[in-house]
């Protein structure tokens, strides 16, 4: 019995000392971690809505699994655009898309926040060659296999039509959301 108490006390002491040291490091890194998250946020927002200077998360909308982010982009106090985060089902999992839309409903840019598409195939959708096609689009977009797509057409990635369709669907969802609530 005495042995168990001794063992238990030793373990408890070790855990408490460890916890104190860890707590110290935790406090130390709280700010840098927050900073990193801010940087990541501004980078991803800035990529899709470059004309804004500050990005403020909208408090007045209820977010869902599909619409996971709504941010207003502002210059001084004027809203210059919105960033809408939409999810859709890709080929091998959920794709999270950030869509930057200005106050006229024109897409400024998109980026993929998170996806698990196949490298070399669907994962090519994350590259600027693909995402760059979306800028300037409005209303509703379509996919096309044509090599010279028009303004509202997005060229499909060869052998990754499911991925392409999923992203176009997400972007169209963002545009409809804009038309319904933000215009």
């Amino acid at each position, binding site marked *: 019995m005495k*042995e168990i108490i*001794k*063992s*238990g006390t*030793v*373990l408890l002491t*070790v*855990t408490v000392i*460890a*916890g104190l*040291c*860890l707590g110290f*490091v*935790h406090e*130390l*890194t709280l700010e*840098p*971690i927050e*900073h*990193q998250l801010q940087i*990541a946020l501004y980078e991803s927002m800035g990529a899709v809505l470059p004309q804004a200077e500050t990005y403020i998360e909208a408090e007045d909308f209820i977010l869902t699994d599909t619409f996971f982010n709504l941010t207003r982009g502002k210059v001084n106090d004027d809203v210059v655009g919105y960033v809408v985060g939409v999810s859709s089902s890709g080929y091998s999992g959920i794709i999270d898309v950030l869509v930057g839309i200005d106050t006229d409903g024109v897409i400024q840019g998109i980026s993929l926040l998170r996806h698990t598409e*196949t*490298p*070399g*195939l669907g994962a090519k959708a994350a590259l600027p060659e693909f995402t760059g096609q979306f800028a300037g689009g409005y209303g509703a977009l379509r996919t096309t296999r044509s090599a010279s797509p028009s303004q509202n057409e997005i060229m499909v990635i060869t052998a990754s039509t499911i991925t392409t369709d999923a992203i176009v669907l997400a972007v169209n969802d963002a545009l409809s959301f804009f038309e319904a609530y933000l215009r």
Partner: protein
Amino acid sequence: MSKISGISRIPRIFKNGIVENNPLFVQALGMCPALAVTTSATNGLGMGVATTSVLVCSNIAISLVARFLPANVRIPCYIVIIATFVTMLEFMLEAYMPALNQALGIFIPLIVVNCIVMGRAEAFANKNGAFLSAFDGLAMGLGFTAALTVMGAVREILGTMSIFGITISETFPQTIAMILPPGAFITLAFLMALINYVRGRTA
């Protein structure tokens, strides 16, 4: 009673950790991270360095407190010490190296169950001084890092025709499967067979 001078054991410690008893290829420890994060040479290197840092710190700490721990509770104490260093590493990476943090993902907190770390604690750190234990941790860590980097390099070259992010060839076909799960098993299988061949010759 004569003692072998600590310093003179160091070369043997390194040879043991990197070649003779390589944690991955010879002892077959740490296979989970080896298979999961070696999708590129950089990731393999990053994981190796991360594990090595924990290994060195935990070896030092454990060698310092080992004599104060009752035998029946020593393993849980080792676990607490190792887990503390692992979580510290996790916070540091989150704060200062977010890209590596993302790439290694869940395998950073899982370093605590990497058999290499606990293995060296039991096999070396609780019997030797802090100085030598640090070197043992470094040696095993280097062996692990070398193994992971090699695996990552093989998979990255075959899978994307690039190494450490630098493209080697635009035209040579890429075997995407190499950076997907099957490629991990295949790469480790061939590397282990290669090591068997090399050791078979010198044994």
